[in-house]
């Protein structure tokens, strides 16, 4: 047994008072969970502490909170580990972000999370005719979508999604992972329509900024951002969907620039994203318009010395052997018969794993 102090964020909507911090000391074995700590405080001292919880085993997804500022499940975080991560030895627990707070650690998931899930047409639109028995599909395809289906809808990824903080309309990591569960399902008849929808929505798949926060946050290894990237690859590479948000061309510009220069060439990124790969891209009307509208940002960056005119205009140069090595990576990846996708449930051959 050891002593742990929890600093809980309390909020009583009926009191008219602002939210405040309250400390509780609990006694538990160090590998017990933060949830058990909170439940002990509730059982022994204050029954009014509000937290949703049910299974205690990271399966039901009820107890999403922030612990020491990081999102996760209270039942899935050990007390000793949480204490080590605390800035002053006191474990801080507060409600998740990006969602309105109802009481104490309880947030309104309907207002944000479930609304976004509903947005992605979250049910199978089965291929017709429906067979009498099961659809015959590859085992790997079912295992593959199981990674997205393993999502327990806890909201931890939504809590700390940076894109959603900036754009509250962003469909977001959990709902897009749900979308992949359907796009990746060979029994679904609406794959193209789904991808067109998600690519053309300005708050859709190209609204993610690759910050990895959702991958970090997810207690179940769903890796929502990876699912979003897979949606992009399906939309761009497999269905050649050119979206009005320029997302697909923007990605292609990254790929071609890194191949050419070994590193990103920022000065070329915007013209290529809007005008395509040619050197004349910047003179295309769409690119010129975007360039013009970006001038204030560029000017600000120059003024604040984030870039100098030389670094901005002169591409990075890598030694030839490094460029060759990069070219070899491209050749290898592009030379594969099939795109290689990482998946939690698919782990290679047994001999690779020992």
């Amino acid at each position, binding site marked *: 047994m050891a002593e742990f102090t929890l600093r809980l964020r309390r909020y009583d909507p009926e009191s008219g008072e602002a939210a405040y911090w309250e400390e509780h000391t609990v006694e538990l074995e160090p590998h017990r969970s933060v949830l058990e700590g909170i439940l002990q405080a509730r059982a022994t001292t204050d029954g009014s502490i509000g937290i949703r919880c049910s299974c205690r085993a990271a399966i*039901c997804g009820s107890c999403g909170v922030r612990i020491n500022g990081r999102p996760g499940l209270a039942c899935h975080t050990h007390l000793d580990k949480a204490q080590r991560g605390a800035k002053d030895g006191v474990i801080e627990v507060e409600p998740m972000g990006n969602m309105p707070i109802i009481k104490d650690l309880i947030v309104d998931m309907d207002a944000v999370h479930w609304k976004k899930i509903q947005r992605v047409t979250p049910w199978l639109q089965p291929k017709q005719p429906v067979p009498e028995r099961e659809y015959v599909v590859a085992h790997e395809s079912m295992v593959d979508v199981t990674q997205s*289906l393993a999502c327990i809808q806890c909201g931890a990824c939504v809590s700390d999604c940076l894109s959603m903080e900036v754009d509250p309309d962003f469909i977001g990591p959990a709902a897009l992972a749900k979308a992949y569960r359907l796009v990746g399902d060979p029994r679904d008849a609406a794959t193209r329509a789904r991808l067109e929808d998600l690519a053309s929505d300005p708050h859709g798949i190209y609204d993610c900024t690759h910050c990895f926060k959702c991958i970090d946050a997810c207690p179940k290894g769903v890796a929502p951002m990876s699912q979003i990237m897979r949606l992009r690859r399906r939309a761009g590479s497999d269905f050649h969907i050119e979206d009005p948000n320029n997302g697909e061309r923007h990605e292609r510009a990254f790929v071609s620039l890194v191949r050419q220069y070994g590193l990103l060439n920022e000065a070329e990124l915007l013209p290529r994203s809007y005008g395509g790969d040619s050197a004349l891209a910047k003179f295309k009307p769409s690119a010129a318009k975007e360039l013009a509208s970006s001038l204030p940002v560029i000017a600000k960056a120059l003024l604040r010395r984030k870039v100098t005119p030389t670094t901005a205009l002169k591409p990075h140069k890598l030694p030839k052997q490094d460029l060759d090595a990069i070219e070899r990576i491209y050749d290898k990846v592009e030379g594969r018969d099939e795109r290689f996708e990482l998946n939690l449930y698919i*782990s290679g051959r047994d001999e690779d794993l020992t």
Partner: protein
Amino acid sequence: MPSHDVLIIGAGLAGQRAALAAAQAGATVAIMSKVHPVRSHSVAAAGGMNAAIAVDDDWTEHAYDTVKGSDFLGDQDAIEIMCSEAPGEVMHLEHIGVTFYRDETGHLDLRAFGGASKKRTAYVADITGQAILHVLYEQLMRHHETVDRYEEWFTTSLILDDEGECTGAVARDIRSGAMQVFNAKSVILASGGAGQCYKPTTNALICTADGIAQAYAIGAPLMDMEMVQYHPTTLAENGFLITEGARGEGAHLLNSEGRRFMEDYAPNKMELASRDVVSRAEQTEINEGRGVGADGQGIYLDITVVPRKRVLEALREIVNIGRDFAGTDITREPIMIRPGQHYIMGGVKTDVDGATPITGLYAAGEVACVSVHGGNRLGANSLLDTLIFGRRSGEHAAARGRDMVMPSAPESRLTQDVEQIDAIIARERGGRRISAIKDELGAMMNDKVAVFRDEQGLQEAHEIIVGLKEEAEVAAIDDRGTVFNQDVLGAIELGYLLDCAETTVVAAIERKESRGAQFRTDYPDRDDEQWLKHIDVQRGDDGRPELSYSPVTITRWQPEVRKY
């Protein structure tokens, strides 16, 4: 006030399946749950769902295995319905999106499970319950125009009209604290089991016998309440479930001598005997000093004999549970387990359409007792039970409502529930806390009403429960608010648990034989002459449980000696 043809209380697999079936049959439907539907405890069902879909399998074999698993206490007409409709139900789930794992030909794969004579368990890794629950919820979102969802509403009581028919329920919006009467032509209880009567248990904190106690309170009979399943593999330290799928995939049970002791108890089926048999074997090994761990109270489950790739693909969740809650990498070392409370075979007595003896009231899933599980449920038959009888209840209730007028309970019906809650909130401090009473109940039940039972222990258990009931009636709470007052709900749930535990104990005292999950050390044999019958428990006028019997339906399988 809201009025629907069918009101469903509980939104796990049984409730959601009932809602979809009733809506499909043209009824207006409301589904109400004290938690968001995907938090329901069905989410924790791991291993899979039984159905005779293999070419060399037949539903009658599935039915026989189920009858034998039930130790011949299951009603065979109901078992025949469940098993014969199982393949169709699996295909239905597959068609609406459940990602059942496939074999190398792309057809549904099947895994071995306890008490089954063939591989017949369809599965999604070891998150089958979660996969089905989430897919059903997808369908509820799809049909949001025909199914009204009341999420995070706590039912406080069922309504009986003057004729003694159930015409709705009173419920509290947890978020606002507002109370409301819900009128309905039929009510389907689908609010799950009662695992929280025990500590430890594999069951979630929400499994507090709500529906069982609410039905009992209005006079519905409960059946088979003495039959409480201990799962053979729960984490030694905290009682979390390790799926039977592990043994289905080939894992071994080892005692302190490193021996597969199941060869002494079930030489043919070994680790895949039915759950009551395996749990009893483990407890015997522990009691005779061959347990493992510091206190000798554990048994080793050795999953390292299963190929690692297969474990990562098909038993992912228990890899997580081992790592996160026991510090064990199950792909490299055995994990310490023990038998732990997992499921109640008993519940509100129903017919094969889910109808209870109270007109207008249905029950399906763990809250109900059809009885398809009898003395012992086979692994992977519970998902099946929830779905088959959830659907049948939904269809039957919808059909029943077609020619009925909508009942209307007087608004005054609200008053007594409001007053009851106000009274709990107003209780004066003093005495023990709700949590202390609940902890004592759980530990006591796990001590005296567990794998092995005897008269003396059961009588003591009953006395303790009667005492705890008195204490619970005056136990004070801290939260005086209306928004998300979980404290007051906890006080109500404690009352439910105590009512339910009492019925379990009196039925266990009554059954003076050993059958299925009920093993009486003072009556160690099965006695078909005396006890091939169900025990029903009903609330008497004085509030005490009253016992009666009902016959076991036998269609084609006469009781025989049960060996695995």
